[in-house]
């Protein structure tokens, strides 16, 4: 029984983090029909920003997530301006290949500059802290990251549903031309959406360095999981991303514990394939 609670909590905490990573991808996909293949590398860059701020300037991840979020917002916006904008309206493959190229550039740049080594911050405020809860042990840095993810997701959802800017983003996603007729500068909306998508992973990556090592390939697994989450949760849907990410987090932790650690991603992708076969529009799609 103790194990069960532990595995459940691990799954939920991981799931919340996956949800924020996936939300960024989902928003870009939902609004612009663009798949950002560099999303995982954005996460990696966010982690490096926070790592170096911690290593050189001794700024704790509890604070440096702000800088990582901001940096990735800018990186996202610049990516849109320089790469995406010019590839939109060409063949559907163009933005896909362009972002794939960007992911290679980012990964190899970090490989070249920072070596492929794993780097873990030491001496962070939350380092090694745990809470025990009904016999289960919770890692505090992971808990904090998960709670942050939940807060950021809620804010994002509120912004999309309740503010004029959010309606303008939704309107642009539904009918770009009609949005222009309302006076919405859809170019700016796209720029903003790419920035927000970047900020989501920037914030997540910024916090994750308090318990995870950063290395140039770290984004790979996260982006793969984010793709699965978005496909399951429905494009552009924040609640969908949250539920799908929790599901994936739980499948991963339960299969990892009760079957074998090596099969946990097999289980994740098996669930994905099953859902795609039975419900091609995703679990929560329409």
């Amino acid at each position, binding site marked *: 029984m103790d194990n069960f609670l532990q595995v459940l909590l691990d799954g939920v905490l991981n799931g919340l983090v996956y949800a924020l990573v996936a939300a960024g991808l989902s928003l870009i996909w939902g609004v612009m029909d663009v798949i950002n293949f560099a999303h995982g590398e954005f996460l990696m860059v966010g982690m490096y920003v926070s790592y170096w701020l911690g290593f050189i300037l001794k700024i704790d991840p509890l604070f440096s997530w702000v800088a990582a979020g901001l940096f990735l917002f800018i990186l996202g916006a610049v990516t849109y301006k320089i790469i995406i904008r010019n590839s939109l309206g060409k063949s559907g493959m163009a933005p896909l290949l362009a972002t794939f190229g960007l992911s290679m550039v980012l990964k190899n740049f970090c490989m070249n500059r920072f070596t492929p080594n794993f780097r873990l911050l030491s001496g962070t405020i939350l380092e090694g802290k745990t809470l025990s809860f009904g016999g289960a042990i919770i890692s505090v840095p992971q808990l904090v990251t998960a709670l942050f993810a939940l807060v950021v997701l809620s804010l994002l959802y509120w912004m999309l549903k309740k503010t004029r800017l959010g309606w303008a983003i939704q309107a642009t996603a*539904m009918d770009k031309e*009609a949005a222009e007729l*309302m006076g919405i500068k859809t170019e700016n909306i796209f720029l903003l959406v790419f920035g927000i998508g970047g900020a989501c992973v920037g914030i997540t990556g910024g916090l994750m360095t308090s318990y995870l090592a950063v290395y140039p390939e770290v984004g790979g697994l996260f982006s793969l999981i984010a793709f699965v989450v978005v496909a399951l949760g429905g494009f552009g849907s924040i609640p969908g991303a949250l539920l799908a990410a929790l599901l994936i987090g739980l499948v991963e932790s339960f299969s990892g514990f009760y079957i074998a650690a090596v099969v946990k991603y097999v289980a994740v992708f098996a669930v994905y394939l099953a859902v795609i076969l039975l419900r091609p529009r995703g679990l929560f799609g329409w």
Partner: protein
Amino acid sequence: MAAMLEARDIHCGYDGVPVIHGLSLEVNEGEIVAIIGANGAGKSTTMRTICGLMHPDRGQILFQGEDISRLPASETIRKGISYIPEARRLFPRLTVLENLELGAFTEKDRSVVEERLSEVFSLFPKLKDRLHQTAETMSGGEQQMCAIARGLMSGPKLLMLDELSLGLMPSLVEKVFEAVTAINEKGITVLLVEQLVQEALEIADRGYVLQTGRLVHSGTARELLDSPEVRRAYMGM
């Protein structure tokens, strides 16, 4: 007095295929002007070019004396031009209220937005009961009301209407045209495109007849209604 809107010999098309071949028209302040013509004549293309969704390859469009030929639609609305496109183009999964709010996207003053909301509710009282319903779940008639209301929310000087009557039953068409007259009486200039030639000319001051990208007739609504050619070609008489 100079016209409010003036198109001077505009040419436009899609991907280099010309559709409008040198069209000139004028709309004076306070008027209702109708553009009529068969399917594919280029009515919507003309409207889209005026509002800035596309730009003329040649020629000029002046609005209140200013050249707007190159302005995008997101700017022409700030000048006071509101275009209600063909087939309404409401945001389907947003509510009626959210659609209306977006109609006033360029208006930052909250009290002005509230005032305009109450104005459109007095014009279309039914919308008030539908505020929190998504646009896609409304009937065609309600959607058309909502589209007109959304188009008014920016507080336009010139309202451009593209085939208001599309898909509406005759009794509703009459209501919608009455609404257009009421809007015009409040001082908003109207440029409209219609297939229902008779009905459109009955509320219009002047009209233009468009045929495969060229104007073939123009005149007061009365003149066009009385013209044997127009009657034969567009009213089946």
